[in-house]
Every structure is written in structure tokens, then in C-alpha cells.
């Protein structure tokens, strides 16, 4: 059994040039946590989701990569209005800016155990793409795996 056999084929995707607002609409409409970002040729570009969106609502200094010695943000008292304002100011930007582009997609022939290990480590659904062309093939989802393991209907 391989990654391809447990993935969800033809998942909901968003074009890399689409706005952040339209990507958020897709999350709401399909009640999903994340969705792959693709270009017009269907090539995988990144993974957008609530986890990457939240990062951009926080002050930038708090989410810088690498060791910044920032500590926590207990002393910052931004209100919900402040956070909404920060999000609203960026709704027109392309969704790709808010996607995790460093996340490497899984290969379709990856073993089942290796697939589950990646899922366990990443804490979110994982894209599957053709390693040669980079074309998105599907999405390994937590619900899909749970359904497969328990034998219960989705």
C-alpha cells in the first residue's frame, strides 16, 4: 500500500494568483483546514491553511524564522479589532504569500508507514505531487486516514 492509495484525489485547490480573501472563502465553504496552492498548469506551489494564515495575523516579529530570542508575547495586548484590521489590510494579496512553500509534497509511491510518519510530524494534511513534473495528485488527510484505519464510513 502506498501514499497514492490513501490520498484524496482531486482535492479542493486554490490558484496561486487568487486573493487571500477568496482562499479564506474556500476554507469556509468546504469546512477544511488547508488546501494546496497550484498554478494554472496544476503544479503544486505550497500549502495554505488556517495555520499559515494565523502566522500573518500575528506581529511579524513574533513569527520570524530562526533564533530571534523573541520569547513570548504576553506583554502585547492587541485587541481582536487590531488583529482583524491586520488581516483586512492583506485580504487583496495573492494567497501564495500566505502559503507554506517550504513544505515538500509527498511522492505517490511513498510507503504507507512513511506517509503516516510524515502526517504525524507535520500536524496537517499533506499534498502529494508527481516528483518529476511537480503536478499535484492529491491530498493525504487526517479524516481519510482515520476512515481507512477504522473502516468506518467518511
Amino acid at each position: 500500500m502506498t501514499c497514492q492509495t490513501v490520498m484524496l484525489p482531486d482535492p479542493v485547490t486554490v490558484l496561486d494568483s487568487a486573493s487571500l480573501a477568496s482562499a479564506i472563502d474556500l476554507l469556509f465553504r468546504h469546512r477544511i483546514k488547508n488546501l494546496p496552492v497550484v498554478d494554472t498548469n496544476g503544479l503544486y506551489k505550497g500549502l495554505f491553511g488556517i495555520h499559515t494564515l494565523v502566522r500573518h495575523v500575528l506581529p511579524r516579529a513574533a513569527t520570524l524564522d530562526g533564533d530571534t530570542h523573541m520569547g513570548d508575547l504576553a506583554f502585547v495586548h492587541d485587541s481582536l479589532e487590531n488583529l482583524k484590521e491586520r488581516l483586512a489590510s492583506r485580504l487583496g494579496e495573492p494567497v501564495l504569500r500566505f502559503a507554506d512553500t517550504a513544505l515538500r509534497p509527498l511522492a505517490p509511491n511513498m510507503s504507507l508507514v512513511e506517509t503516516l510518519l510524515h502526517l504525524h510530524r507535520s500536524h496537517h494534511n499533506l499534498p502529494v505531487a508527481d516528483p518529476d513534473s511537480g503536478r499535484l495528485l492529491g491530498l493525504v488527510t487526517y479524516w481519510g486516514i482515520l476512515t481507512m484505519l477504522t473502516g468506518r464510513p467518511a
Partner: protein
Amino acid sequence: MHESAGHVLFGLNPFWVSLALFTVTYVAIVTERLNRAIIALIGAVLMIMSGVITQQAALRDGVDFNTLGLLTGMMVIVAITRKCGIFQYVAVWSAKKVNADPWGILVMLALVTAVFSAFLDNVTTVLLVAPVTLLITEELKVDPYPYLFTEIFAANIGGTATLIGDPPNIMIGSATGLTFNDFVWHLTPVVAVILLATLVPIYFFWGRKLSATAEARARVMQFNEREAITDPRLLKQSLAVLALVILGFVLAHPLHLEPATIAMAGAAALLLLDNFAHNAERQSEQVHKTFGEVEWVTIFFFLGLFIVVYGIESAGVLKWLANRVVELTGGNLALTAQAILWVSAIASAIVDNIPFVATMIPLIQSMAPVYGGMQHIEPLWWALSLGACLGGNGTLIGASANLIVAGMAERAGYPIRFLPFLLMAFPLMLLSIGISSGYLYLRYFM
């Protein structure tokens, strides 16, 4: 040739072999194609394997364990202290003290950076202050560039003020026996003047145009600095140990203690306080994490570099070079001091000041007999310190702190580019060296 030299490979002249190894090492460091610690270690090993020096002499006379101990001890102290949030507390407190006025915050953060930098290493200082700066400027909706630029300058200027503020000073102090108090007495006054003088052009260039809305300022004023303190117990312990360490540096001479012993004592005490309440497993985990935060790349870079420089010193290269410098300056001490100041500044703006200072120290020591002994060349050490530390401000690659801030700014979406930085920084660096030049002349040669 030095007595510690061994038998050089193929009977080659140690003078030329050591000079070739030193030059290749130096060029490799400057080109930055390989990690500098790897280069320095390879240079050191080749210096020994070629027979220029023996391993025994390299470790006994070449490696300055006082410098390594001081650096490591202070790194451990900072790694533990920063966990309690004191540095964020001070940065936020200082911003609120000026009612979140954009120019006031720039000045306060510059002062905070300079003071931290005088007691911590510059890279650690900017790693602590720059993220809070980005946070505050984002809330204020002002461009963070002037703030980050000023903090780079403040870090390098503040680090010049004390024995422990910047690696060149640590090396100079260790090699010459100059104490913490000597550095404070001779360098801190001029450093204060330089910092204030640097802020004047920054005000006219950026400061007077900085403004923020009342709403944005109110957001910063809502920050509660007390909530930045994550561990009040550790805060008290860290401050007590830091105070004792600084007192130790001040009293080092009458106590007959070397700076490395004091820093290591502080590190050991803080490790003890931070761990004794935990079980063995947690202790092991915490100590491992703390030691992991020691910048081993820097430590091994120093280790290798000391041996490489000892190689050319043993082979007589530095003595030969010192004689040429003395000839050029006509044996005039004031002129030599000025030459060291300006050459160090320009060199440090272009290349890493650590290898430069490591080379200059034995070179200056070799000049001592010409000027009547070590006690007469003290101004040369201050010239070297001022030039090497302040010169780092000249370019974006002049000091590690500059690159750290630039990297952080880039990741936050506010890139600091080489040329725009150079156009503003180099004249400001020259201003600081000009002030240093006047200071050296007025204080030591009038």
C-alpha cells in the same frame, strides 16, 4: 625564529611557510565560501603539521584560554538570563518612558542596545533588541529601517566601551593584562560621546520625519512590560549573578583573578541556581540546552585563529612587520596610534575584526621595545580597540551584528541592502573614528 618552532616540512623556511598559510587562511575567511571555524581549524592544523610550531607550543603559548573562557562563560550567563524576559522588559519599558514617541523610542532603544552591548556580546544584544524593535515599529506603523540601522551602530559602539563588550576588547585585555576598569576609564567616555554624536545626523536624516498616529502610540503604551517577565525567580537570580560578575570584573585586579575565572564562576553559579530544584533528567536536558546555545563556531574560530597567528609570530613575521610599521611612522608613537586607529577601522569595515585584532596584538607587542616597553604603548591598544570595534559599522559585512540584523529585517520584509547601508554608515563610521582620533591625540599626546 621562535624557540617553540619545530622542524619545517622539506626544510622550507618557516617565515615563508607560515606567511603562506596565514595568507591562505585569511583569504579563505574573507571570501566566506566555507564556515570560518572550519577554515581557522584547518589553518591551525596545517601550521602544526608543517612543523612551523609544535602542538605543545600552540596550545601552551598560542591559544588564549582566558579569551575562550571569558567568551564561553558570558555566553552561558546570557543563555540562562534571557529566558526570564528581562531584555524584552527593558526594551518595552524604555519605549513607554518616552510615551511611544517614534524619535524618543529610537533614542531609547539605541541607548538600551549600547548599554546591553557593553556587557553582552553584540550579536546577542541585537538578537534580543531587534525583534522587540520590529514589534514596536509594526504597532507604530513606522519604517523600522532607521531603528535597526541605529541599533547596529549602537551595538558596535556600546561594545567598544568595556573589556567584555566586544571580542577585540576581550582579546586585547587578555593579551595585555589591561583590566575592566582600564577599559571603562579609557574608552567609556569617548564611546558615550560617539554614540550621542552619531544620533545627531540620524535625527536630521530620519528622526525629524518620524511620526505615528495617537492610536498607534496608544497601542504601544498598552504593552505591559511586567508581563514580559516569564520567570521572576530566575530574573532575581540572573540579576544577582550578573551584578556579582560585573563587580568581579571591577575588583579583578586586587582579587588577582582573570576575567575568564570570573565569567566561568558566574556561569557555574547561574547553572547551579537554574538547575538545583529539578530532577536529574530535567537538569541534564536544561544544561544540554544551555550549552547548545554557546556559539561554538565562534569559540572554535578563535581557537584555530590563535594558533595560526601564533605560527606567524613564532616564525618572526610579525616582528618583521612591526619593524616596517615603526620605520614608516618614524618611531613616532602618536603617529603610530593614528595609523593603527585608521587602518584598523578601514580593515574592520571590510574584513572580520577578530582575525585582524588577533594579528595586530602580537604585532603591536613587537613594537614595545622601540617605544620603551609595554607600559609606554598603552595608547596603541586604545587605538586598536576603537578602530577595530567602531570600524565594523562601516559596511553591512563589517560586523556579525550587522548581518544578524540584516537577516532578521529581510525575514520580516524590510531588507537592508548593502549599498544604501554603506552610503549612510561609512560616513558615520568615519565620524566616529574622527572623534576617536581627536580623543587619542588630546588625551595621550598633548
